[in-house]
């Protein structure tokens, strides 16, 4: 048990050290290479196209919430980060924006990140408001015009997906970025958007959701790719350093796995070594 706790602390230590060491070097101009992810490029292009057409971009942080271990906090935070970066692009290009969340705490954070995105381009006064008149041709829905930041449900993924599907079929939505703690309920939204011809970039970590996204979405961000938005979309040095730290720790874990396999093959007990129990 002590070794397992020690390994966890070691991983955290390596992460923090890598971020603190690499970020200043990247800030000073050291260039790093990341493999291209078509999903992020497609999201950028879709926003540009939506701006030309005057149609709405739907940004979703998924049905998850923030604050406990069972609701997909990390995935929701990743979705919120992407929401903020994409909102900044929408603000810069004048693209109407609809941001939705599936949890109360995620909703307040979503309001913050959208406001932050608009503030970065000096358009804080133009943050879209639910029900307010839009400069674009977004049609009127049950909830008002298809814009603004909305909490569609709280800790009820199916209810959230059903509400998001209803909004997606609204004619004003032309593209969507759905990244967060999605499960199989993604299909409700994905199918509605497929029928409406909405271009979708979706991302999740749940294998059930990923299977449905691969079938239904135009581009899928698989697992860990959803956490790389900061490094790809705004190339922030700390995010790039964080991504490099992930790769570093991944290699360390691969080495540990290989050593563990060799140790077990030679007759040792990994369980006994790590957890202090005999198999």
């Amino acid at each position: 048990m002590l070794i397992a706790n020690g390994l966890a602390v070691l991983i955290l230590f390596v992460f923090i050290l890598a971020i603190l060491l690499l970020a200043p070097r990247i800030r000073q101009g050291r260039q790093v290479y990341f493999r291209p992810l078509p999903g992020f490029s497609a999201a950028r292009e879709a926003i540009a196209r939506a701006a030309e057409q005057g149609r709405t971009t739907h940004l979703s942080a998924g049905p998850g919430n923030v604050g406990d271990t069972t609701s997909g906090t990390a995935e929701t935070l990743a979705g919120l980060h992407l929401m903020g970066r994409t909102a900044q692009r929408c603000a810069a290009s004048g693209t109407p924006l609809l941001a939705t969340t599936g949890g109360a705490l995620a909703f307040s954070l979503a309001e913050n990140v959208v406001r932050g995105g608009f503030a970065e381009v000096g358009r804080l006064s133009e943050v879209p408001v639910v029900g307010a008149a839009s400069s674009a041709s977004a049609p009127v829905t049950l909830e008002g015009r298809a814009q603004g930041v909305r909490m569609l449900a709280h800790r009820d993924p199916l209810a959230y997906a059903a509400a998001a599907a209803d909004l997606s079929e609204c004619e004003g939505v032309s593209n969507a970025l759905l990244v967060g703690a999605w499960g199989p309920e993604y299909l409700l939204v994905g199918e509605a958007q497929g029928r409406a011809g909405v271009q979708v970039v979706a991302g999740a970590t749940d294998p059930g959701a990923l299977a449905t996204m691969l079938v239904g979405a135009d581009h899928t961000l698989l697992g860990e790719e959803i956490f790389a938005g900061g490094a790809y979309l705004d190339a922030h040095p700390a995010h790039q350093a964080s991504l490099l730290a992930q790769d570093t720790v991944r290699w360390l874990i691969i080495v540990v796995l290989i050593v563990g396999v060799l140790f077990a093959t030679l007759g040792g007990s990994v369980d006994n070594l790590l957890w202090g129990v005999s198999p």
Partner: protein
Amino acid sequence: MTRPRQDDSDYAAAPPARGRRPAGSPAPVRPRRQTNGFVALNIAISILVGGLVLFGFFAPGAAVVAVRLFSSWTTTIIVFALLLGFANLLRVHAGRIRTMQAGWPYSVALVVSALTVLVLGFYGNQTVGDPSVQWVFTNVYQPIGSSLFALLAFFVVSAAFRALRAGPSAAWVLLAVAVLVIVGTAPWSQPGGPLGILAEIKDWLIAYPVLAGLRGIVLGTALGAVATSLRVLLGIDRPYVS
């Protein structure tokens, strides 16, 4: 070797080569975030609280008081936020009903449902575990959720059909494996049956390629989650301030 960027977002479209920038070339100018005192205070509090809670995971005895204290504060704040949210929900939908806006019958359903559950809760044990409130959840809320979930089976077929019609893609592999697993799970494919080989293939698929892929996704996701959480803890990502 550096590459001219088309715009401020073009980092990933065609990534630059690894290594240091060429000598003599200017360092890229990156905008630095302005941080005022209020934001700095927010960041300091979040780092302190997050650090203490994280420390509590590794040393439960030492930080238990702080973790319990923060948890009780959070609960108190959430209760007041819930009351405010409930009042706001009723206000908004009452306004819609009063002005007969489009879809106002849905607002009536919402207000009636909310008030019914509230009254039932006050009438009984005044807890969410009250039998009358539980009856509403068991006989109204859960069946609606189950019905919605059952629809997913039809959505899967529809999505697969659309994906297959679009041409060769991963959907074909998905379909082939799904059919194999379904057939391999059927009674006639049990070991010793006429199609027992299918059960063996299915078991092999689940035990090796599927499990390997799942472990890869879980490992990558865990590392991504750690990185994301650390960025919030270190104040690099600040969704809590705008």
